[in-house]
């Protein structure tokens, strides 16, 4: 009987990164091969669909939402603050941006309007995260549960608004608001529904939060909170304040993403589940894919965004493989990341005797 053992190993950072990329590339090739066998499409066609998904500029549509949200979450998770409510905070951000754009005089001021809308969106996102944080701090109530439940409340608040007081006069009874004024929209790249301004801002946010988490005392303390609350307290930093900071930043960034969705993509408030679109939940995964490091969350959000596009491309493009197989492939490609992570941290030793 050969003996199989799984053994920890340590690779240098560069070797780890290279190994991961290699595993993923091999995996993509494998996925393409399997799909072509299963569907009878040529390998070339499937490979082209794959390649196009990863080079399609539309990835930025998804990155604009996933990246800020996931970066905020990676900060919260580093601090052991289990904010699972990004979806709801994102919806509240969308509500906030719509409010500024439609119902305040600021909405008709060029440049000021989108900036004010994004600030207010971030504020509402943070506000929506606040009750869970306070309940945890003063009553010890598990924040994972409260934030999760608050998501659904947020959905219904948005639904109420678009079906009730905020329903547009020019929308023929559809549950949406009126379109927001041109002045408050963020200009998109020609022919696409994303904005370069937002993409640059999102990457800047990721870099800034990286510097915050790894270079400042407060940021380092946030990460230490994940190891030991007592340690942080004994270093003279209030663990409660840090917890609150982590929670509010993650809420604000989800709110920011929600604001972006309104100002760039929807251009009006729609029903909660449509605004949220599950991105708040996907972002949880993206932040872990990036190892809770804001810098690595950038490629993680790119990869996930490409998979979104791949999933559509496989279904409606020339491959047309159908919903089930396309989900299988996307799931496989996500699982690959875990495999790559495993293979860089452990090696498998087989001994024959």
């Amino acid at each position, binding site marked *: 009987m050969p*003996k199989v*053992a*799984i*053994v*920890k190993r*340590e690779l*240098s950072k560069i070797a780890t990164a290279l190994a991961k990329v290699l595993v993923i590339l091999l995996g993509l090739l494998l996925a393409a091969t399997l799909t072509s066998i299963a569907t009878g499409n040529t390998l070339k066609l499937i490979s082209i669909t794959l390649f196009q998904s990863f080079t399609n500029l539309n990835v930025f549509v998804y990155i604009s939402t996933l990246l800020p949200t996931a970066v905020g979450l990676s900060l919260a998770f580093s601090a052991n603050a289990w904010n699972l409510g990004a979806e709801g905070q994102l919806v509240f951000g969308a509500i906030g941006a719509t409010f500024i754009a439609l119902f305040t005089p600021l909405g008709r001021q060029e440049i000021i309007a989108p900036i004010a809308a994004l600030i207010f969106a971030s504020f509402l996102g943070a506000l929506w995260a606040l009750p869970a944080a306070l309940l945890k701090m003063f009553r010890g109530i598990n924040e994972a549960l409260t934030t999760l439940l608050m998501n659904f409340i947020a959905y219904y608040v948005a639904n109420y608004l678009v079906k009730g007081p905020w329903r547009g006069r020019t929308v023929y009874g559809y549950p949406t608001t009126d379109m927001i004024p041109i002045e408050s929209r963020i200009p998109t790249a020609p022919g696409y529904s994303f904005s370069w301004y937002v993409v640059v801002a999102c990457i800047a946010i990721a870099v800034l939060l990286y510097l915050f988490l790894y270079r400042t*005392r407060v940021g*380092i*303390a946030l*990460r*230490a909170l*994940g*190891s*030991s609350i*007592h*340690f*942080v*307290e*004994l*270093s*003279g*930093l*209030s*663990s*409660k304040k840090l917890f609150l900071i982590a929670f509010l930043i993650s809420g604000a960034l989800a709110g920011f993403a929600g604001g972006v969705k309104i100002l760039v993509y929807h251009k009006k408030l729609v029903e909660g589940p449509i605004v949220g679109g599950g991105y708040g939940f996907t972002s949880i995964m993206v932040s872990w894919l990036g190892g809770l490091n804001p810098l690595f969350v950038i490629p993680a959000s790119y990869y996930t965004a490409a998979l979104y596009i791949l999933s559509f491309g496989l279904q409606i493009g020339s491959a047309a493989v159908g919903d089930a197989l396309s989900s299988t492939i996307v799931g496989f490609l996500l699982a690959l990341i875990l495999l790559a992570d495993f293979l860089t941290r452990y090696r498998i*030793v087989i*001994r024959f005797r």
Partner: protein
Amino acid sequence: MMMRKPFIEVVEIYKKFGDVIALNGVSLEIYPGEILAVLGENGSGKSTLAKILYGLYFPDKGYIKVDDVVTVFSSPAEAKNRGIFLVSQRPQLVDDMSVLENVALFLNTSPSRDLKKKLEVTLRDLGMAIDVDRGVYTLSYTEKQFIDLVKALITQPRLLIVDEAATYLPRELKLKFLDIIKKFAARGGSVMYITHKILEAIEMGDRFIVLRKGDVVGVFEKGVDVTTIRRAMFGSEEYLTTFKRSPKKITHESFALSVENLIVFDEHGKPSVNDVSLNVRSGELISIVGIAGNGQKELGEAIAGLRKAARGRIMLNDNEITHAPASERIKKGLIYVPEDPFREGVAMGLTVAENVKLFSQSKVSRELLDALIKKLDVNPSNPFINVAKLSGGNIQKVSLARLLLTTPKVVVAYSPTRMLDERSKTLTLSILQRLAESGSAVLLLSEDIEEVLHISTRLGVMVSGKIVRFFETPDLESCREDIEKVMVHA
């Protein structure tokens, strides 16, 4: 005796962590009925060796032979199957489970009535009064250490690896325990006894191996003297300073730290600190010593703010801090060196540099960082590796860096030298003494009379949550017997 075969042979084991060589081709063998003492300063590779024998680490090169058969352990389960057990310096227990459940989990059985009886008998034989249904989180570090040791012994192993585990037990229990280990060896068991305490090694060992920075630098037979081993451990350099208690220089008449009628409850609502009052002036170094589980831990945690004070007052420079959160007390000039470096002393997920950065209210320059690492002799000296990669003693050294960044008003330390080798222990005690000389009020809580005897200006003995007696003479050493008597019999 001539033809006996070793139970286990370690052949040319080599292990590297990142850029750090932990073991550089170590070979040794342990015979049945033999206690092999493995010595070395903090970070010399002792624990890495133990973990390889126990299947926790996989060697980069080299192999192990058990009963003359080449073996690879890829998990502790496999090592356990071959009768090899490790009791480490970090108790391997699940906090949320009871003592009984922990032992059952370890033995892979159910927490049956039989097991409970067996465990209770073993504990009683050792004179340890621990309710086996208690949750492990309610135990002190020392009690946990002890349970961990009992857990391994109850399995009747063939090789027992004791990695600094007995080093910190209270004297009486320790003697009993060492006796049991000796008996275990006399019945034919093998023991690998890892320690940095030379005297303890000499008392226990049949043979001695000294490691330094991953190399075997000495193999000695019974009868070797302390100096020979010390020289092998540290090289020839002279490092031992003798402590001179400086004449008391009380800079202030008022108290820097004062505790009034403090009552602290344990997890079961029983008072573990029962009406304790004590005052420390600036410039004083006061020790409170007692056998583990007599309330020193809770006293320290209450002063630091990690544990609620049920009644009484705690004053820091005439400001009441009884109910302030720990972080506020630290900001006001109190420094607490916690009992458990792994959980409270450092953040394991961060680098050495990041940990030190958190200790300091002001910016820590690279020069300061390097100076601290050099002064504390943290090994490896790279400040950018994760603390989790350091050995236990080196982690404690990082935790002690907090003492060197400011001149705090009050220092409270709980067994700060428990994990340290002789050189680092001497250094730490001299740091505490110097802090007192430069005006800090130092309160040293300890279970180890050796730690406190030479440097205290005053010494209190704590029994069952009360400070039963203070000793205050210029020559505390002469009171040693009295102090020990009070600790045990009050």
